[in-house]
């Protein structure tokens, strides 16, 4: 298996793109990435998309997007793994290049959530859960996260400490051109906002948006951004089946595989893009990734540990909360952002001396997880 | 063989109805209101499960489940099919829903008695339950309530809680209260629902049964009558020669309103909750349209070991008040 590198990156601002159809958003990001890579020898396409069948009535998206790029004959497929679709699509593309099946893979995550009413967007999130005994209770992703949030608060922290995860994400997003909400948010604003699902406040939850991000992968050279590892793991779907609900088993297992593959330890990670669709999930992700000790992440974030100059720079462009969470696209945004950091082209968001970065993308309540580690190759 | 009863947790006070509509009536103090996720089927299941538990029988041996109601969730699909499935009586079971306004529950009882008496089934369950809908600003809005009770009938034996001595049904074509099929609310004849309807038929059934059995009112420990409000059952009971002491234990309307097809069954269940072995119970229902079913039950020794778990009084005292708007919301009466 040969080494794989990120050759090009494309990012669309997360927003409500009323005028763009889904293939239009895709094309914007894809063409950006191809241009950035300086080559258009793409011979395989992996599309990360979660809810196109519900929101756009669209299946067979691989073919649709290859069509949009005027590439008949292209190997193309849509990858779906709930909210982890982007991260898992990236994983599939890496394997294609590493194995030699593909010499130039294009991965694009795309989602258009503004096409549907908020209730339908909420329903799509709950479609990631087991339907007959979890979704049938009328629970939402916010509700499931809230249950974990309550357990965490009972054991480890104050509500406002977990809430700081959102405040930090917003702080990191200030000035970011592709972020949905590139402005500061105070902890007071977060804690005063109405309850989404007790005890989670509305302002602790990632919003709904449209977006597309793309990455071009090629065999690695002597210099550039290498894909040091990519791993996917799953866990039992229902919280009722988890021995310790506060341990995200899929995250732990995917991370273990990734660290081993990359031959690094958690302490070697210079920055992490984690799945903070709800503040608690960001906190638990940091812990299950082994980047922070169990029970300590909320306090660490509250004390500034996740800032650009903190001990574990996290969500450096705003994460899901402030950069945005266009479901199937999110995982590719994360990887693209890590790549920008390792290239040194993160501008005001740059983490100084970043060499190794991690992206973690989850589907369901941590029932699927894709972890990617990128490494700067210096000649 | 066993019995169970259930009343939902929410209550609407008559004073709250008056606050909104400017009326002054207090035909009952308050009435029971279902939660948005309850209906006649869920009420029936609660009562049925309690009856099965108390009876000690294997539910798969129940040969019939008959639900009497005027608020069945499906116009076509018997509530009994869902209740039977929920309690584990399927598939060797017969079910159907009965309708006879407020006496649908006792109709079901009459037929279960016949099934067991004829030897067709070893056990037959009759349920009377309703989630009665009151037209806003109508007199019946104060009292149209929700609740139900279930009775498992079996051949009289040492393990039965009460045995039936006799029953009698008295029915005529008297259109005092009715609902056409596509209408949401029933209509009624106001004062016509009194003498020519409620009183005439309860008198007819009661007199008929007393004559046939040779009993006098003094022979009974308890008297349960259909209770559309607080006053009617007291009036009809007294006019037949019964006393407040006999009527009171089964008189629940002041606190829960009129549970329609559940009314007499629930009153009977409340009486069984307190009656001592050997006590005689006179129970008479009334259903508009019209008719009455009258029963004489004698309580047996076995009852003392077969009324465990929360009694009806516990469900009645378990309550949360709702305001009128919340009541309308829960009952699906707000146009959206």
């Amino acid at each position, binding site marked *: 298996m040969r080494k794989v590198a990120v050759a090009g990156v494309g990012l669309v601002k997360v927003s409500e793109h009323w005028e763009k159809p889904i293939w239009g958003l895709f094309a914007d990001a894809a063409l950006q990435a191809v241009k950035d890579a300086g080559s258009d020898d793409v011979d395989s396409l992996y599309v990360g998309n979660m809810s196109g069948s519900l929101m756009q009535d669209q299946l067979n998206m691989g073919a649709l997007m290859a069509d949009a790029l005027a590439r008949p004959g292209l190997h193309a497929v849509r990858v779906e793994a709930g909210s982890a679709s982007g991260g898992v699509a990236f994983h599939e593309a890496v394997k294609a290049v590493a194995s030699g099946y593909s010499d130039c893979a294009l991965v694009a995550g795309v989602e258009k959530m503004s096409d549907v009413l908020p209730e339908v967007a909420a329903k799509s999130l709950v479609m990631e859960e087991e339907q007959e*005994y979890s979704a049938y*209770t009328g629970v939402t992703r916010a509700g499931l996260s809230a*249950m974990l949030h309550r357990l965490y608060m009972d054991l480890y922290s104050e509500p406002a400490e977990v809430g700081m995860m959102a405040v930090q994400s917003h702080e990191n997003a200030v000035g970011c051109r592709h972020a949905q909400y590139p402005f500061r948010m105070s902890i007071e604003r977060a804690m005063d906002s109405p*309850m989404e699902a007790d005890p*989670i406040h509305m302002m602790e939850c990632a919003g709904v948006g449209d977006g597309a991000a793309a990455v071009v992968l090629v065999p690695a050279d002597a210099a550039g951004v290498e894909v040091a590892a990519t791993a996917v793991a799953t866990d039992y779907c229902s919280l*009722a089946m988890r021995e310790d609900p506060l341990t995200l088993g899929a995250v732990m297992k995917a991370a273990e595989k990734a660290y081993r593959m990359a031959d690094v330890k958690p302490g070697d990670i210079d920055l992490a893009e984690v799945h903070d669709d709800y503040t608690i999930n960001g906190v638990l992700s940091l812990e299950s990734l082994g980047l922070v000790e169990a029970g300590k992440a909320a306090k660490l974030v509250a004390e500034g540990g996740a800032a650009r100059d903190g001990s574990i720079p996290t969500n450096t462009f705003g994460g899901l909360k402030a950069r945005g969470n266009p479901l199937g696209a999110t995982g590719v945004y994360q990887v693209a952002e890590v790549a920008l950091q390792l290239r040194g082209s993160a501008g005001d968001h740059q983490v100084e001396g970043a060499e190794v970065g991690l992206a973690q993308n989850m589907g369901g309540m941590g029932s699927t997880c894709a972890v990617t580690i990128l490494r700067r190759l210096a000649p | 063989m066993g019995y169970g009863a259930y009343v939902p947790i929410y209550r609407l006070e008559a004073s709250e109805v008056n606050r909104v509509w400017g009326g002054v009536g207090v035909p009952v103090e308050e009435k029971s209101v279902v*939660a948005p*996720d309850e209906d006649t*089927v869920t009420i029936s299941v609660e009562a049925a499960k309690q009856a099965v538990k108390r009876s000690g029988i294997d539910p798969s041996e129940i040969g019939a489940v008959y639900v009497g109601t005027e608020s069945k969730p499906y116009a076509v699909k018997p509530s009994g099919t869902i209740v039977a499935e929920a309690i584990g009586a399927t598939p060797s079971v017969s079910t159907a829903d009965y309708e006879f306004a407020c006496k649908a529950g006792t109709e079901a009882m009459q037929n279960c008695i016949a099934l067991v008496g004829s030897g067709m089934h070893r056990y037959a369950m009759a349920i009377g339950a309703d989630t009665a809908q009151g037209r806003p600003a109508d007199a019946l809005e104060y009292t149209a309530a929700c609740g139900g009770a279930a009775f498992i009938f079996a051949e009289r034996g040492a393990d039965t809680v009460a045995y039936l001595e006799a029953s009698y049904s008295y029915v005529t074509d008297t259109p005092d209260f009715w609902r056409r099929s596509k209408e949401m609310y029933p209509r009624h004849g106001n004062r016509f629902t009194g003498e020519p309807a409620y009183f005439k038929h309860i008198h007819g059934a009661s007199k008929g049964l007393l004559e046939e059995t040779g009993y006098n009112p003094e022979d009974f420990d308890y008297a349960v009558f259909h209770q559309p409000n607080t006053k009617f059952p007291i009036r009809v009971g007294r006019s037949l020669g019964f006393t407040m002491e006999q009527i009171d234990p089964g008189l629940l309307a002041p606190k829960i309103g009129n549970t329609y097809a559940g009314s007499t069954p629930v009153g009977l269940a409340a009486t069984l909750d307190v009656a001592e072995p050997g006590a005689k119970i006179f129970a008479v229902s009334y259903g508009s349209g019209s008719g009455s079913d009258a029963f004489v039950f004698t309580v047996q020794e076995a009852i003392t070991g077969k009324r465990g778990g929360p009694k009806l009084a516990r469900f009645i005292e378990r309550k949360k008040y709702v305001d009128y708007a919340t009541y309308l919301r829960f009952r699906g009466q707000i146009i959206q």
Partner: protein
Amino acid sequence: MSVPRYWREEVPRYRLLGKECTGCGTRFFPARPVCTVCGSTEFKDYKLAEAGEVVTWTVIRNPPTGFEKYRPYVVALLELDDGVRLLSQVVDVDPEEVHAGMRVEAVFRRVKEDGNAGIIQYGYKFRPVVE
């Protein structure tokens, strides 16, 4: 809502009927094809305990489609007296009254309907124990 999908789960939902692994005795709800503990594929019917306690809970204030008319409602992770855990709504209670360790018992309730003309879907929920 698919009628076959609803019908298939009636008995497990109505009667809280799960499965017990014949290999190691572990109990599951709902049923599954492979035991998570010993890998066996042989199971027998198992009737769950009908009472238990709240482990953690939330209040749903923005329901998904189909559940709008019930908002707000409590959903909890419960541990039944036989050790089996499951997710369920908790009803007949004000959200402020719910607490970890609260004793609850199973009840039969409506879950949702398919409009005014489709089927009514029933299932289990839990309420504070009525002694």
